[in-house]
């Protein structure tokens, strides 16, 4: 009896929570401040944005991956264990947010006190509500002169629909009112209520690969306990392992003896095969398993696809390894082998959005030191053929002949754009231009409106976000959800180099835009393709019909320098260097194109903006 009281007491002194916010509202800064205030790390060990451990995260100022931290905080004479799970804010990473939410009982909702409720504030708050989390609104950046806390509190109540009058007004930057946040975490958030003596039940909410310890599972223990030496079982894959180590994050990994119900930490079991760990899986004791697994996660569907190929064809296997390792803690990343006539062997990869695509390709290049070529991103199309067959395809090169197509359906999204009222005109103009269908306009308050549109997803993956930002001076924020498929008049535009079709450069666009895109593509390629021995015609074509043409004229001279005093060595070395410099080139028929060409075709020209 006595034992139970003690353990109940232990869980009562635990709070598991996450921080959710719109991008750039100060999530990582608050996390840093909490870690500092609780003395989890000495001040000298603090570096800004502590939990954003990836080089890329710090550079871009965004959080991509989840990172848990255990903090100890003394409140009214009692020591509390606070487990914080940081979450990403960008729309592409909604999936990751929902993963961390499932491991928590409470969520701090940060709102910028001058900017107010933004698209992701709303989206993340709803996610937390769906997960039955207690939500604690916090107003950040109170130190800014433009802060309008009272208005924003009202906005939160009106728009999000949660009480906000008692929300702490803080400045994560200068540390104002951080204690108040800690106090409210303890007072407002429920404690975990697991059965410590029950059968082991843990949620794997993330994982990563450690070269020495194998795959590391980040877990939340719901019931029971786990320690080194235990035999555990992955309920989804059915694989069993012996635990070699358990531990917590403070915020660096630290070995502990045991993890009990209510705890957040990690398990290492020398798992060498990445596929054996599925994020969202439930871990239980192999000898004394629980009956029912945790609900886990809804499998996310990638919406943006592109081909990824190694620049050096011999590095296919290395690219495969890299993708597998990245998938280990990014379940949303999907890939399957693809063969391109132009680029050889590679992968067709699916992403949650363009930013996700960009992040993954940068991580491959930086963390795995691989040079890659990414092709133009596209969406999954449904093609009804005249013979009744329905194809679902994400690769332009698989599109059947126009004569075999009865109709094509493309995915559409419901988009909500939040912005100050003076930009409504510009936003609507952009949406119309992107083949959008107007759905409504809501005045949230005197400062903000919400514009609702139905838009084709393919228009969003192209350059929508950049255009929106530049047309609204960065004030607009944007969120979307998938809204099914719609018939659309789409055509495939092929690019021919020296008369030969380059499959990796094909794109699918709306008929009305085909000519403009074709012209735009040929012009861009003309700038990118260096002059060669022969003239290179660049053509854009729909079927057999040429819609645009440019020409790269032939190289006239390379070098006519003096070969002096028999210095052949210098000449040979120059030539070898020149040859080496061409390694990043791809040969399409008889034309050499730099690997940047494949990606640059998505970049905007000024006139498109």
């Amino acid at each position, binding site marked *: 009896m006595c034992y139970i009281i003690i353990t109940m007491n232990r869980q009562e002194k635990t709070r598991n929570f996450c921080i959710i916010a719109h991008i750039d509202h100060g999530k990582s800064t608050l996390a840093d401040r909490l870690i500092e205030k609780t003395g989890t790390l000495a001040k000298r060990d603090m570096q800004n944005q502590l939990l954003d451990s990836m080089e890329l995260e710090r550079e871009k100022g965004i959080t991509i991956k989840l990172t848990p931290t255990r903090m100890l905080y003394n409140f009214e004479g009692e020591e509390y264990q606070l487990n914080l799970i940081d979450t990403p804010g960008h729309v592409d990473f909604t999936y990751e947010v929902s993963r961390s939410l499932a491991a928590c009982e409470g969520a701090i909702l940060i709102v910028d006190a001058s900017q107010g409720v933004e698209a992701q504030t709303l989206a993340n708050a709803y996610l937390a509500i769906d997960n039955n989390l207690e939500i604690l609104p916090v107003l950040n950046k109170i130190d800014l002169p433009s802060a309008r806390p009272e208005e924003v509190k009202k906005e939160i109540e009106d728009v999000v629909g949660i009480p906000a009058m008692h929300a702490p007004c803080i400045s994560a930057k200068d540390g104002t009112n951080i204690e108040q946040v800690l106090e409210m975490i303890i007072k407002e958030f429920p404690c975990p209520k697991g059965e410590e003596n029950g059968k082991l039940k843990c949620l794997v909410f993330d994982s990563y690969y450690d070269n020495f310890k194998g795959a590391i599972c980040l877990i939340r223990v719901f019931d029971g306990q786990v320690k080194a030496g235990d035999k555990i079982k992955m309920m989804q894959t059915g694989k069993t392992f012996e635990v070699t180590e358990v531990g917590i994050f403070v915020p660096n990994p630290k070995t502990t003896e045991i993890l009990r119900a209510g705890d957040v930490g990690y398990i290492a079991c020398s798992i060498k095969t990445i596929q054996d760990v599925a994020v969202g899986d439930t871990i239980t004791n192999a000898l004394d398993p629980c009956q029912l697994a945790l609900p886990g996660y809804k499998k996310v569907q990638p919406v943006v696809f592109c081909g990824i190929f190694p620049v050096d064809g011999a590095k296919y296997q290395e690219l495969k390894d890299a993708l597998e390792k990245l998938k280990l803690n990014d379940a949303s990343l999907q890939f399957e082998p693809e063969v391109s006539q132009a680029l050889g062997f590679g992968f067709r990869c699916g992403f949650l959005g363009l930013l996700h695509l960009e992040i993954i390709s940068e991580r491959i290049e930086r963390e795995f030191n691989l040079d890659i070529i990414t092709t133009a991103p596209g969406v999954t199309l449904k093609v009804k053929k005249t013979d009744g067959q329905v194809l679902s395809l994400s690769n332009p090169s698989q599109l059947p002949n126009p004569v075999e197509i009865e109709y094509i359906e493309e995915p559409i999204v419901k988009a909500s754009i939040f912005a100050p009222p003076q930009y409504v005109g510009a936003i609507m103009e952009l949406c119309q231009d992107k083949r959008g269908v107007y759905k409504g306009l809501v005045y949230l308050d005197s400062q903000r409106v919400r514009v609702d549109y139905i838009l084709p997803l393919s228009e969003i993956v192209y350059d929508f976000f950049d255009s929106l930002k530049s047309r609204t001076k960065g004030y607009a924020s944007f969120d979307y959800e998938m809204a099914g498929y719609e018939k659309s008049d789409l055509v495939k535009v092929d690019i021919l180099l020296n008369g030969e079709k380059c499959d990796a450069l094909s794109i699918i666009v709306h008929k009305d835009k085909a000519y403009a895109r074709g012209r735009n593509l040929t012009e861009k390629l003309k700038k990118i393709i260096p002059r060669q021995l022969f003239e290179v015609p660049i053509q854009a074509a729909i079927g057999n019909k040429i819609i645009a043409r440019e020409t790269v004229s032939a190289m*006239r001279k*390379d070098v006519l320098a003096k070969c002096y*005093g*028999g210095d*052949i060595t210098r000449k*040979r070395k120059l030539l070898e260097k020149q*040859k080496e410099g061409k390694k990043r080139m791809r040969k399409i028929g008889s034309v050499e194109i730099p690997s940047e060409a494949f990606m640059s075709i998505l970049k905007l020209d000024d006139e498109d903006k």
Partner: protein
Amino acid sequence: MNSIYIHIPFCEQKCFYCAFASFDKQFDKVEKYFNALKKEIDTSPFKLKIGSIFIGGGTPSAVNPCFIEQILRSVREKFQVEKDAEITLEANPNSLDEKKLKKYFEMGINRLSIGVQSLDNRQLKTLGRLHNRKQVFKVLKTAKKAGYKNINCDLLLGLERQNFFQLKREINSLKKYVTHFSCYMLQVEEGSPLKVMVEKGKVKLPQDDKVAQQYHKLAKFLKKNGFEQYEISNFASNGWLCRHNLNYWSRGNYLGFGLGAHSFIDGTRWANSSSFDDYFIGKKAFTEQLDNKQIVEEIVMLGLRCCLGFRLSQLKKYGVKLEKNPYFNEFLEKGVLKAENGVIKINPDYYGVSNLVIEKLIDF
């Protein structure tokens, strides 16, 4: 054939575009230098029959002809110089006079390579050359009188305000005196005064494309006038090809004496140091033994820069089958290369872009 190159690193004034091992403020070192040069020749471990000698620079005509005479004597004492050997001296119009020309002729020099560069006095000034148009013709006439039958003129392409008509006029006025033209494209070398002048906008050089166009027109024009192109930059009339250069390009043996001079004997290349102090103590800049891959690279590179071409069977010896290179077949098909009795040659129309062709062929 075996050749000898002798480097004379002294100039009255270094040209503004020059990046070679030559010096205009080191005349106090002339005597010491020629002593070192003589020693280097005298102690050479090689015994070769010599078919060509090239005395280059710098400006060999800038030093007292006695020094040249002494060096040639050393060479003849050490090596067996063939009776009809081609012996070239590089010279600048301003440092040549009748006396010197006669003296050179007497010591056996039978080919002059004159750094004319341009006949436009303003262009010459921009380049930092010390001569003018008038001097060029005076020197050429005097040389003819002195008995020289084989004379080359260096010309530069890509000069400020230069156009094809100017080049045409220059060729027309020079052609009766010379047997050979070397036409190089002006390169703006890193660290040269010309580079600074271009950066500051004091000199405006024509666009590459324009120069390339002039080059192609010039090649045609020279051909019409009896000067056959036999290398990227070289044109000869009546068979007066430069045997010394052909020996470089056919990978014959050669010994280089003097500052920064390169040698190539039986597959080994080496070079002397380009600093006086290091040269005086006999320091080498490098020595390299070519591997099979490098040998093939050289055969292709040198063969396709000139009229010699290369034999496919020669590459086979080093384990390279060019026929398997898709570019090779493409080039043959498109007429960039021609195959004649197993010899691969470049179409002279593609001399100007030979690096592009070569680079593709040595991709193994």
